């Protein structure tokens, strides 16, 4: 029977996974808002695929999935900055390369197939100390970096020539955002699953961009939507014995549907 707070959710076994996921559910929507502002949200799906592929390659080399995935995603993020890869075509290639690599590695390694499925579905309940530490490190990095990154990103979006006109470099904040996003997606993909991680990047920001009265509220609303969606998915998946990733995605998409319905009358005046 469905209970509001299933007994399993209170089990000490689930505390580490729960806190790990909650940290990521607060972080990813903020990054999603920045990527949406930069029109780069599709890049997140490419990075998530590349992270999953490199996690499997790392496993084959004896590294934990979360470490291999993070290393691969960091390299992908740095390459994205270096090549100034922007636009849907670049992100489509990132997705295709990641998807191809993921499935080829999965098909050609002993435990790859089941692990490949685990990365796609999410293996939150197996998150341990390593995942919690990396999530905490990412949240701490974001708290440290975002006050510096955020104004630069907003300025570059609305006043793209200000920095170059004054011969100020722009690569450092681009690299900072790409690396933070890549590392966060790698850890999130290894815990929440590929589509669960992408949904937390894309959907809360998508909803917040429609409803929030300001940028400040966009960030707050995105965090709240990500957090509430995660909590609801965690409880629902445990209570109904369903895979976590698909439940999270389903709930977030349902929330997006509600937001689209309620925000239908608040479209642009222009």
């Amino acid at each position: 029977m469905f209970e509001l707070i299933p007994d399993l959710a209170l089990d000490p076994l689930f505390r580490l996974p729960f806190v790990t996921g909650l940290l990521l559910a607060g972080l990813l929507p903020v990054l999603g808002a920045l990527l949406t502002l930069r029109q780069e949200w599709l890049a997140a799906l490419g990075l998530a695929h590349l992270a999953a592929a490199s996690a499997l390659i790392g496993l084959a080399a004896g590294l934990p999935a979360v470490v291999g995935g993070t290393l691969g995603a960091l390299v992908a993020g740095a390459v994205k900055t270096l090549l100034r890869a922007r636009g849907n075509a670049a992100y489509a290639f990132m997705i295709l390369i990641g998807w191809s690599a993921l499935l080829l590695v999965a098909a050609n390694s002993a435990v790859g197939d089941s692990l490949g499925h685990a990365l796609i579905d999410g293996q939150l309940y197996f998150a341990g100390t390593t995942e919690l530490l990396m999530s905490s490190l990412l949240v701490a990095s974001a708290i440290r970096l975002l006050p510096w990154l955020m104004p630069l990103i907003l300025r570059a979006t609305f006043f793209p020539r200000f920095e170059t006109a004054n011969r100020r470099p722009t690569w450092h904040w681009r690299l900072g955002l790409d690396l933070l996003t890549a590392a966060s997606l790698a850890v999130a993909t290894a815990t929440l699953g590929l589509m669960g991680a992408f949904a937390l990047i894309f959907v809360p920001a998508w909803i917040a961009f429609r409803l929030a009265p300001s940028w400040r509220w966009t960030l707050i609303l995105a965090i709240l939507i990500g957090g509430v969606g995660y909590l609801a998915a965690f409880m629902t998946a445990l209570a109904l014995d369903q895979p976590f990733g698909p439940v999270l995605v389903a709930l977030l998409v349902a929330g997006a549907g509600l937001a689209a319905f309620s925000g239908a009358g608040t479209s642009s005046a222009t």
Partner: protein
Amino acid sequence: MTRAPGETLLRVSGLTAGYARPVIGPLSFEVRAGEVLGLWGRNGCGKSTILKAIGNAARVFAGRIEQAPGLTLAYLEQQPARFPRMPVTGHELLRSAGAARTDAPPALAAILHRRLDRLSGGQYQLLWVWSALATAADLVLLDEPTNNLDPDAEARLVDLIVRPGDGRAVLLVSHERRFLESVCSRIVEVSVDRESGCSS
């Protein structure tokens, strides 16, 4: 940095600029603190390329662009960034530009709390231009700022540009001669004929 009235902020000497190949020049002019200088020419003659060269976004083939020591620029291209959803208020836009002034004209002050995507195109463009003018930049480069503005909005744009600004100078590019005459201290005519050069 507050500049002395009349101080030369920018000296352009024999500038030939372009991208893969030259598209404009040679051209010479100066911009002094406190003035509004207009570059006038027909559509397609390469006026915008001059601003791009000054703003490090186009190639300089010949000539020199000399800036006063410590000169800071605020450079706006022809169109403001416009996305379907922009949950950013006017106040936040001003902050992101690094706007130092708080004396926005009443018509703009009244809409600063609204999201940019809930403003009309003209309101947003005026706010965008004001964001650059309200910074502490010594020289503001504006490329065809009247694009898409109706006559009322264009009149408000004139008011924005001529508001006094601590020795700040404005370098404007436009194909609308009447607008430049209403707002500029001096006008430099840009000719597409490279042989005849440009006159001021």
